[in-house]
């Protein structure tokens, strides 16, 4: 990581100054099943900069997780990327002298999903934590073994050599030894706040509590020092007190390593405290994208508005009913015509919303929405 801590502070206010890490352009993912074609992701466009947290919210089945898996080329069969590009701005992880700032642009969608390049990126440069910590850890391996695997696969240590002018320079790299991997595993467990890491490193998943298992997952993901972390509902299975600990930990680690985070959740409270920018998805389409404050204080799309109003909030009791979104999520094989949200939309205009597919329209600085209300 070449960006220093002071730069991070500075770029918090000016998001655009940060270098690009990932650009998703018009991504389309389809699942061909017996009943037809499900467009799980349909025309998704966003970018993530180094050190930024991008939130993706939406209800189940809206394509959040499929997007995450598309970036790592892990879409389960019969899913396929059918359009668009995912550009990854790769910096050398183990730069040779003079190559520290070299940026290589890789289109992830063109890679062989089993190839060498994606396998270096997956887990090493872009790591992922999954929702269910119990089923994502192998029950027959200890926490330490899990971390060792990631470290030995993806981390190289520099060998310092005396260069021309009697200055030590990094010329070569070597793999991590077993003892070093264990030391790294213990250090990672300590950093994610697991008590007695020297003992816990030899614990099996069933000997850990839910919160500890999720910490182990985070430790695995972060042990390779990734440039980006994809967190797919990382706290959904956890209690609020443990959730608060984990979110604090992620923010802390982001501050120290300048890692980008793609945070997928359906919990509006969690996303409000984590993300810089948010993408709202509905039935595979992105319906709104904005900075977090704009999205919560000035939502444009009727779906975003309804979503924000339908969560009960802590605070003075109003005794009122919750605003709910009428109807239910449509059948993905039989999507409504026009705007996919029109059958449930309170601002529905007959003859327009059910006929015309809305375009992706800019309504403010960094604020985009897909709704006919905002088209000229």
């Amino acid at each position, binding site marked *: 990581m070449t960006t220093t801590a002071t730069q991070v502070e500075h770029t918090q206010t000016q998001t655009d100054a940060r270098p690009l890490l990932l650009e998703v352009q018009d991504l389309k993912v389809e699942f061909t099943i017996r009943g037809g074609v499900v467009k799980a992701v349909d025309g998704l466009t966003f970018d993530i900069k180094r050190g930024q947290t991008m939130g993706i919210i939406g*209800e189940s089945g809206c394509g959040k997780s499929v997007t995450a898996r598309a970036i790592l080329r892990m879409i389960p069969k019969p899913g396929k990327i059918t359009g668009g590009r995912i550009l990854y701005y790769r910096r050398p992880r183990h730069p040779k002298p003079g190559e520290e700032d070299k940026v290589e642009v890789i289109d992830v969608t063109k890679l062989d999903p089993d190839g060498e390049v994606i396998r270096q990126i997956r887990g090493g440069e872009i790591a992922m934590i999954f929702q269910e910590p119990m089923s994502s850890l192998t029950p027959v391996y200890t926490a330490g073994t899990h971390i060792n695997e990631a470290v030995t696969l993806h981390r190289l240590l520099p060998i310092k050599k005396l260069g021309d002018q009697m200055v030590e320079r990094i010329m070569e790299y070597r793999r991590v030894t077993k003892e070093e991997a264990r030391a790294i595993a213990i250090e990672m467990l300590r950093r994610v706040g697991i008590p007695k890491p020297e003992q816990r490193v030899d614990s099996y998943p069933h000997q850990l509590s839910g919160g500890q298992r999720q910490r182990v997952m985070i430790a695995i993901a972060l042990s390779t020092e990734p440039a980006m972390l994809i967190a797919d509902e990382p706290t959904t299975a956890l209690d609020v*007190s*443990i959730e608060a600990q984990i979110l604090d930990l992620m923010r802390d680690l982001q501050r120290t390593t300048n890692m980008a985070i793609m945070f997928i959740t359906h919990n509006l409270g969690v996303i*409000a405290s984590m993300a810089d920018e948010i993408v709202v998805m509905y039935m595979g389409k992105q319906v709104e994208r904005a900075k977090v*404050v704009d999205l919560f204080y000035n939502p444009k799309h009727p779906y975003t508005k309804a979503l924000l109003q339908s*969560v*009960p*909030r*802590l605070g003075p*009791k109003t005794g009122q009913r919750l605003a709910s979104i009428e109807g239910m999520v449509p059948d993905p094989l039989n999507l409504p015509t026009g705007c996919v949200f029109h059958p449930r939309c309170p601002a529905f205009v007959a003859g327009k919303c059910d006929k015309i597919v809305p375009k992706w329209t800019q309504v403010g600085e960094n604020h985009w929405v897909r709704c006919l209300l905002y088209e000229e």
Partner: protein
Amino acid sequence: MSSTTTKNGRIGDILLEVKGLKKYFPIQRGLLRRTVGYVKAVDDVSLYVRSGETLGLVGESGCGKTTASRCIIRLYEPTAGQVFFKTRALSPDGTPKMVNLLELSREEMNRVRQEIAMIFQDPINSLNPRMTVADIIAEPMVIHGKYVKGESEERIIELLRRVGLRPDHLRRYPHEFSGGQRQRIGIARALALNPSLVLCDEPVSALDVSIQAQTLNLLQDLQEEFKLSYIFVAHDLSVVQHISDRVAVMYVGKVVEMAGAEELYNNPMHPYTEALLSAVPKPDPLYKSDRIIMQGDVADPSNPPSGCYFHPRCQYAVDLCKQKAPEFREVKPDHWVACHRAEELKLRGI
């Protein structure tokens, strides 16, 4: 505490009173299945519900919320305690009387179960995949011998309509419905026998935000219409605040605080309640969080700490808390708390 006005202006008498409820699960080891210890899943729970009100039961996973609610209808046989319930089912003329459910015979208990219904967390696993919606809703009536051909079918259609499903859904199977619709089927089944008390075990936590709001609204409407009382078990504090008249907070098998919803959220008197409230993420990006991060994990119910179970994680703990377990007492009218320092601490609400 016999009667008071709830938020909807209803006057309610005590419908259910639980005193000193305990449920210990034995831990058995070895060839002879020797009992080597107990998991104290529910350890001295006392609470009450007035008719027509909602009591929220919150706490982290494993704190015994679900076990406590199942002990109330004796799905688990409690180890100790008393559960008083006002029932009409046991008197021939239908006059209500208070009985201790734990002293009833099997046959008597089955009769009382008509008046206590349950809604489960997982709408997929709580419906039999091989039964149609009509059969699922009719099943409680059949079991209790109340199914009358024709008449009951009309009632099932009426119930379906009431929970927002259509009569043509009757012949369908659970897998044909979405999560929110399945939960509605579960609710219709719970209402089939006109219960007075409904135990809702995390009824909305498996649902999406927009569906969650619909379901909460439905539960409130049904309460209004059928004069139901709810015990609403959940871990989401915002949902519990929204729906509850009173809230009980559980920690490692014990109720640590119980008060009116507004009172509890504004003036918590137990440090655990305070920490729990501050940990809830607020849907507001400008909210400056100064939350109390509780250290460590929830205590192990098979090997709880000495004294107050919360003392290892409590920032206000003193020596007394390590030695003596606090008593669950009424500190203010209708505000119960189990903390040695309840009076002296000034705790932060929301």
